[in-house]
C-alpha cells in the first residue's frame, strides 16, 4: 500500500506529458459528385519550408496509380513504406472521407501544412488541390479544392 501512491504519481508524471503532446484532429474531405470511379486521395504534411514531413492517409490501394498523385509522389519519393498501415479504399463520388487521429501537438501552429492530392481513373490528376495550414486559426473552416474536393475541413 505504501508503494501505491508513489507508483501512481510516477505513472501519472510519465503519462501526462505524453498525453499533452497529442491532439485529436479530424480531417473531412467531401468529394464532388463527379460520377466516375473512386478517387485516390492522399493527405500529407509539409513543414514551413515546404519539405515533406509524412503522410496521414492514402485512400486507394493500387500502388501503380500513386504516380498520379504527383505532388505526393514527388515529395515522398513514392515509397510505400510511407503509407504502410495508413492505406484504405478509394473514395467514391460525392462521398466524405473522415479521418480522426491523434496528431503530434508540435505540428499545430508551427507552419505545417496539410496537402490533399487527388486522382481519378478516366479523370484528372489534382496535385495539392487543397493546401491548408495546420493552425488554430484555419481550423473549422471548410475550403474548396481545385479538383474533386468539394470541401475540406480540419477540426481540433
Amino acid at each position, binding site marked *: 500500500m505504501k508503494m501505491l501512491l508513489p507508483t501512481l504519481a510516477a505513472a501519472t508524471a510519465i503519462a501526462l506529458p505524453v498525453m499533452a503532446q*497529442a491532439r485529436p484532429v479530424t480531417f473531412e474531405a467531401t468529394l464532388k459528385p463527379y460520377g466516375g470511379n473512386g478517387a485516390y486521395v492522399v493527405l500529407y504534411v509539409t513543414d514551413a519550408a515546404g519539405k515533406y514531413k509524412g*503522410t496521414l492517409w*492514402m485512400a486507394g490501394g493500387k500502388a*501503380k496509380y500513386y504516380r498520379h498523385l504527383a505532388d505526393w509522389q514527388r515529395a515522398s519519393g513514392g515509397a510505400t513504406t510511407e*503509407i504502410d498501415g495508413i*492505406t484504405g479504399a478509394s473514395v467514391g463520388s460525392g*462521398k466524405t472521407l473522415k479521418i480522426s487521429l491523434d496528431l503530434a501537438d508540435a505540428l499545430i501552429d508551427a507552419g505545417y501544412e496539410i496537402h490533399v492530392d487527388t486522382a481519378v481513373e478516366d479523370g484528372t490528376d489534382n496535385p495539392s488541390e487543397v493546401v491548408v495550414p495546420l493552425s488554430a486559426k484555419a481550423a473549422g473552416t471548410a475550403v474548396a479544392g481545385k479538383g474533386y474536393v468539394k470541401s475540406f475541413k480540419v477540426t481540433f
Partner: protein
Amino acid sequence: MTKSLRLGAILLLSTTALGVAIAVAPVHADGRKTAGQDVAEAHETSRLIFASESRSRHHDRNRRHHHDDDDDDDDGEDGRGGMRPPRAAAPDAPVPDNGLFSGKARPKVDVQ
C-alpha cells in the same frame, strides 16, 4: 460403264488421299492437337488478338491516362524495380514512424 468406273476411281483416290492425310497427321489419343489444327488455331488466335488490339486501340483513344496502367502487372513497382506493394490497411497495422502520429494509434477512417 466407263463413267461408273471413272467415278469409282475418283472416289477411291479421294478416300485414299484422306486416309493418307489422316495417317500423316494423326490425332493422338491423349487429346493433343494435330499440326494442322495448331496452325488453324494459331491463325484464329492471331485474328482474335488483332481484333482485340484493334478494339483496344480504338478504345484507348477515348480513354484517359490511367488505362495506360492496365498494362502494368507490376503493382508496387516504380519502374526502378525497388518498390513493393503497400500492405493493406488493417486495424493492427503499425502506423509509420514519421512523427505525425503522436499516440502511435492508427487513424480512425470513415467514408460516408
